[in-house]
């Protein structure tokens, strides 16, 4: 019996080497692509820098031109700013003051004819002190009830306090009244 045995004398293929070559090929393609990309990006960035530089210089020129034109009008600017600062101060001063005219006008108007003023003082803190005289007890009573409704119905006067009622020899009554102004109510007007 004869047996034939075949022997392969060729080198066995190196599978690892083939894989490395394949990966190497892919990597070199990627490397060249990245190199190309770098060249494109670098050229683009260089062009953009040049463009921005030109644009910046032209804007700078325009700004310098505008600055010079504004400097020529410095006098009118100084006048405008000085006026503005003074107007601003006037506004602040007016805001901080009590509207005395409105306050006194209001007090003069709400006072019944049967009541006469002797003294009024209006302090900077908004406290009003009045010394009044009523011709009769009825007038005094009306006045006190008027004051209480003023406190309840209107917001202009607060803490109305009638004190030291004294009777004079002619039948008249003296009454001292103090109250606090609601400044906000007067500033609204």
């Amino acid at each position: 019996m004869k047996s034939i045995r075949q022997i392969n004398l060729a080198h066995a293929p190196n599978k690892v080497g083939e894989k490395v070559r394949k990966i190497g090929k892919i990597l070199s393609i990627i490397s060249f692509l990245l190199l190309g990309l770098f060249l494109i990006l670098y050229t683009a960035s260089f062009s953009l820098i040049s463009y921005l530089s030109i644009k910046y210089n032209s804007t700078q020129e325009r700004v310098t031109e505008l600055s010079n034109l504004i400097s020529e009008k410095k006098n009118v600017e100084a006048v405008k700013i000085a006026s503005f600062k003074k107007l601003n101060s006037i506004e602040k001063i007016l805001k901080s003051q009590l509207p005395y005219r409105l306050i006194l006008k209001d007090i003069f108007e709400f006072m019944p004819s049967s009541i006469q003023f002797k003294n009024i003082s209006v302090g900077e803190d908004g406290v009003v002190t009045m010394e009044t005289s009523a011709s009769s007890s009825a007038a005094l009573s009306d006045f006190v009830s008027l004051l209480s409704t003023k406190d309840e119905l209107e917001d202009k006067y607060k803490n109305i306090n009638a004190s030291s009622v004294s009777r004079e020899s002619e039948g008249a009554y003296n009454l001292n009244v103090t109250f606090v102004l609601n400044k906000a109510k007067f500033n609204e007007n």
Partner: protein
Amino acid sequence: MKINDLLSKLREYQSFFISSVIAVVLFWLFQNYLIPNGTKIGEMLTMQNDLIAKEKILTKKLEDLGGLDEVEELLLLRKVNAVIPQEKDIFSIFSGLDTQQADAGVVITQSDFTAGVVSTGSAAIVPAADNKPYKSLDVSFAAIANKENFLTLLNNLESFKTRLFIPHDVKISFVSPDTLDTSFILTTYYLPFPPQLGTLETPLPQLSGQLARIKDKINQNATAISDAEPIFEKGKSNLFQ
């Protein structure tokens, strides 16, 4: 044998080596050229945007300045200066009180104040204690008037016809039902001109509604302080002619 093996191995891995070298070179190129360029572009864009914003502000400011009438603005400043002078200006206090007296029909029985330092330069030097830009002077004031005239006086004090007087601590005694003996403090103010204008890009101030109303009222009522030199008649240059 060994060298041949090594060479064949190298040949086997050559593309891998080349791509590694290219990767290293690329990394170096990106690091040293592309990234700095990117940073520079970012900086330039920021600078450009800042410059464009500045250009816009300056263009607007120039437009606003172009819309101003220099003569009109100067006249307004003189009027505002009459209302709130740059120094104490004692003369304008007295003349203002005289005008107020005549206009309201009240009789001033007393007006006095402590002038303090009268030299004009000191007004600009002495800083205000309470950080307010303006400074003030108090005038003790007493007047006799009827109710109507007294209210007119209080109204006129705010009308900007004279320098600004603000009343405080009003005390009224009734001489008769309609005749008032009044006393109060009048505070008057002065404000030196700003020492500097601010930067070039500082926009021109815009008047709010309330400020515009005050400006209109001043324009209408105040009398501008003239900076013209007073004219004195000169005598003969030669007495024997």
